[in-house]
């Protein structure tokens, strides 16, 4: 469909979009999404295995790429897997993901964030599981309520409540200036 002429109809343009999305390779997806996914896993899990979690989510997408690539927003799928695993009580003991990311890492030891930022994310992790996921998705990806709801598979009203309560709790704990939930 490339090189459509000047009289291209709206339908043709829509077909172009669908076709381009279908042709996106896992490699392109990985390069675009991976750094942000690692950041997301780090702030949400706060554990030494955060990078593994991101890589495991990508491995899961890789194994199911035929299905995942056909979703409206493949990134939402991998973010959801990452969000669930980041707050999971359980950790995989396979060494595959760890080895992969170690080799892809530019440095052995990660530099810490600024202290006030570390403290912010630490407080986010003290929120309830769902509040933490909603807050992290909102700020790390600049996602709105509808996109967060689609990512986590819950109602928009639920997201609004969690986001509002999460913000209020963070304001009270960090700034000591209670913010009224919306």
């Amino acid at each position, binding site marked *: 469909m490339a090189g459509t002429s000047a009289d291209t109809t709206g339908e043709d343009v829509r077909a172009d979009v669908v076709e381009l999305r279908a042709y996106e390779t896992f490699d392109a997806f990985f390069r675009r999404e991976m750094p942000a996914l690692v950041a997301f896993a780090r*702030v949400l899990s706060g554990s030494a295995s955060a990078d593994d979690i991101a890589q495991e989510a990508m491995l899961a997408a890789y194994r*199911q790429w035929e299905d995942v690539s056909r*979703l409206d927003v493949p990134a939402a799928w991998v973010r959801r897997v990452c969000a669930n695993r980041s707050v999971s009580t359980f950790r995989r003991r396979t060494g595959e993901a760890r080895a992969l990311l170690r080799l*892809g890492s*530019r440095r052995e030891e990660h*530099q810490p964030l600024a202290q006030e930022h570390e403290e912010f994310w630490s407080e986010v992790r003290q929120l309830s599981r769902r509040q933490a996921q909603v807050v992290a998705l909102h700020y790390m990806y600049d996602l709105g309520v509808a996109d967060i709801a689609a990512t986590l598979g819950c109602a928009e009203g639920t997201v609004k409540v969690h986001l509002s309560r999460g913000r209020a709790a963070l304001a009270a704990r960090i700034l000591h200036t209670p913010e009224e939930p919306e």
Partner: protein
Amino acid sequence: MTIDELAHAAATDARRHAGRDIDPSNALRQLHRARHRRSVATALSVVVVGALAIVAGGAVVAHQRTGAVVVPPLASLTPSTDLQCSVTGITCLGPGLYRLALPVPVTVAVPPSFEGATIALGDDAAEDYRNDVTGHTGVTVFEKAVPVRYDNTWSRDATAGTTARSMTTWLSKRPFLTHTSITPTSVGGRPAWRVAADLKPGVDLPASKNNESAAPTFGGAVWNAAYTPSLRGSYTLLDVPGAGVVVIWSWTLDKDPQALVGNQEFIDGLTFG
């Protein structure tokens, strides 16, 4: 500074750090190499099975080498917005009703107090979480559960036996537990035993779980279970042909042990086979 301003600054900082630390191209190359090696190994094992399987295995290898997307006809590109139902291994049977492709398939009737965001832990376990309590709380279902030794090796403890009944007795006598009770029950119409206990204060915690010292109980290919000072729960064990001993772990990180009570509804909604 408002909480929004602080949050945006913290997010920018986190993204910048991850961008500096991670080399996506290098990580991607390693991923392809690892998957290629695994695919080749798979194909070689298939040779033993027969010529037809070789063809199928070769097709898989060829696809995974390229990492390319098989482009379906445009007509079949029906976008799905239900991410849960698009996860391989989960079949959506209706509202709140899922079938999980564990070694023996499990049907889960998810109560409203659970998220319904069941996630797979490898090929033989899955878990879901409560949405009505503050502390992290949920239920994990393990098939082919392996009882593990009271050390940091996560290796099989042969003294536990191989049946749900023998593992129930073994678990109830773990030296790191106290206030232990065994309750006969049933899950999906199958006989089962529930073991409830508390972690004995001051005991040695030789393993590690969730960055906490832990007393291990069960392990699998990619998962494990344990007691930690902040993680309490109960175990329900049953025999399911094809799935070995199934362990249903009801757990909570909530300070209020009453948080566990609502987990029973999830367990009551499980059927195997």
